[in-house]
């Protein structure tokens, strides 16, 4: 079966062990997690988990149902079926030789990123956007020599319809 990327937004009880229940569900059943991001919401006893996974249509059905079956999971929202905004934050440390600096800054400008740390021979750049933007950005920076990357998982919210 054909696989594609799914983005799930999951509200859970903010309790110890909940993340382990979810991680255990995925490892125990051989499901894959591409990225994961967890933080509390405006309600202190509720956390939102945003999870990206790549699988086929039958597996994503099972994943959603199995997640829902966990006692601490309140809602499972499949954003893939909806319109949503997605963001992911990354810090990218790249070699910045004098002759390359202008080009790097031009790329930074085009992608509306920011240079957040400058050294004698490197820049650290902050980028925020969906995963497509990240990929495009990294492919342009790659020839300059990427030293290291730290990236969050995707976070996302459904768009409000109507009005």
């Amino acid at each position, binding site marked *: 079966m054909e696989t594609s990327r799914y983005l799930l937004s999951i509200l859970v009880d903010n309790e110890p*062990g909940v993340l382990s*229940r979810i991680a*255990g569900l995925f490892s*125990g059943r051989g499901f894959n997690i591409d990225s994961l991001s967890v933080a509390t919401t405006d309600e202190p006893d509720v956390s939102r988990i945003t999870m990206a996974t790549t699988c086929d249509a039958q597996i994503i059905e*099972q994943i959603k149902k*199995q997640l829902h*079956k966990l*006692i601490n999971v*309140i809602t499972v929202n499949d954003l893939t079926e909806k319109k949503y905004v997605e963001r992911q934050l990354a810090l990218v440390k790249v070699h910045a030789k004098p002759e390359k600096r202008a080009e790097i800054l031009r790329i930074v400008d085009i992608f509306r990123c920011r240079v957040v740390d400058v050294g004698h021979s490197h820049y650290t750049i902050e980028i925020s956007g969906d995963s497509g933007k990240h990929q495009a950005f990294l492919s342009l920076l790659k020839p300059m020599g990427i030293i290291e990357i730290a990236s969050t998982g995707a976070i996302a919210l459904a768009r409000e319809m109507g009005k």
Partner: protein
Amino acid sequence: MKLTGAQILIKMIKAQGVDTIFGYPGGATIDIHDEIVRHNDLRHILVRHEQGAVHAADAYSRAHKTTGVALVTSGPGATNTVTGIASAHADSIPMVVFCGQVPTGLIGNDAFQEVDIVGITRPCTKHNYLVKDPEKLAATIQEAFYIARSGRPGPVLVDLPKDIIQAEIDFQMPEEPKLRSYKPNYTPNKKQIAKVVEMIKDARRPVIFAGGGVILSRASEEITRLATMARIPVTTSLMGLGAFPGTDPLWLGMLGMHGTFRANMSIGHCDLIIAVGVRFDDRVTGNIAKFAPHAAIIQIDIDPTSIHKNIPVQCPIVGDCKTTLEHILFLMEKQDPKDLAVDRQPWLDQIDQWKQTTPLKYDQKADIIKPQFVVEKLWEITKGEAIITTEVGQNQMWAAQYYHFDRPNHFITSGGLGVMGFGLPAAIGAKAACPDKLVVDVAGDGSIQMNIQELMTAVENCLDVKIVILNNRYLGMVRQWQEFFYNKAYACTNMESAPDFVKLADAYGATGFRCTEPACVEDTLRKGLATPGTVIMDFVVEREESVYPMVPAGGALTEMLLV
């Protein structure tokens, strides 16, 4: 009112209608055990190994229909429960396991007899808790019982640190649990119900396939009415045995790897399967790609994850089996009966022909006892009224095939996990739940040795169970696979070195009988069943008998090895 944690625990357990706890003490549970013995209306059965406590609680749930409870100490006491919990999880049996734990201040310090039992049992419980605040103890216990028995039932574990148990707090009976993240759906979708009735009317060769879910939701009566009303033959999974009378003409026998010829053939040729409370385990489907090639499938289950998991279905219905069947029956009763069983006779004739040509069979000769014969005689003598527990292996399959279960909750087996050593503690749990019932463990010579220590529990507590050992001096089911698929290389399955089970019974204060001749089988059974107290009947049977039919793993259901 100030109560200790231990007092609260006992109060909350009793409030659930539980009258028996299966347990084993240790440093972390002394306070609880100290409290238990002060309650005349709560019996503590001291098992001889914690695994026994959990299997007994499992069977108590199944036979008694209230939630079984096990109570063990921290560390090794807790880890000894894992197999029993995993078995109950696989079979969706409601149960609450309480474990002692080191005091909260020591948790995480690798204290003496500390294990992270909540972490260990996360994947094999329906849910579990570590109680860290004495104020939450009562509500947590109540929630544990509620989760264990609602929706798709399952085992719940509650880990109780010693300081929580010793704490003194103001007790108030908690409100009924209300969880925003857990709301099982019992009521089926109306539109789907209408579709079911249409599908039944359109079907010419329908089959009902019932599973453990029917037993759990107590829907046997509804299954029987549905079958009778539309003349639909019925098969069940191992866990579903007893959901439909095993002596009814519409009964097909069990389905699957050791299912009857006619049940497996019916699935291969039917045009509609009404699957109720089943999860399409691989032991029942055989090769998935070749399962029921001509059939549309209706699947009714309380657990949405059971639907579309292994098999695509045309009409999924999420709902309680009993409630859903009631809705279906209500609509069916309004139909013209003629429309419900159109052209059924050719289908029933076909099934009858399969039954006549290829029945379950064995050949009882004069010299050596056939294990099937023992089970069939047991069925005759007990008029099918005993509660049968089993061990695992050939003994389990022969019990399933030859004790023609007519009623639910009378067949208690470790179905999903297949735990050797289940049958004896399970028999003890069933007997504790139903003291007026005859309880028989149909056992293998290998399995019975896995929890043999529980003989003492049975004898001490006058929980008279009868153990029928089908003694083939082999790990028979494994030997059978070696015979069929490994060139008869019987590696590590010979069990000729075995205790003398008659003397062993005697050593424990039970009674033992041995039977080596076919002519004595009936006599031994009658004598053994009539002897008061716990009894072992050791039937020395044909060593290399195999269970037939057999669908080799990965084969299509209709491609059976036959005698």
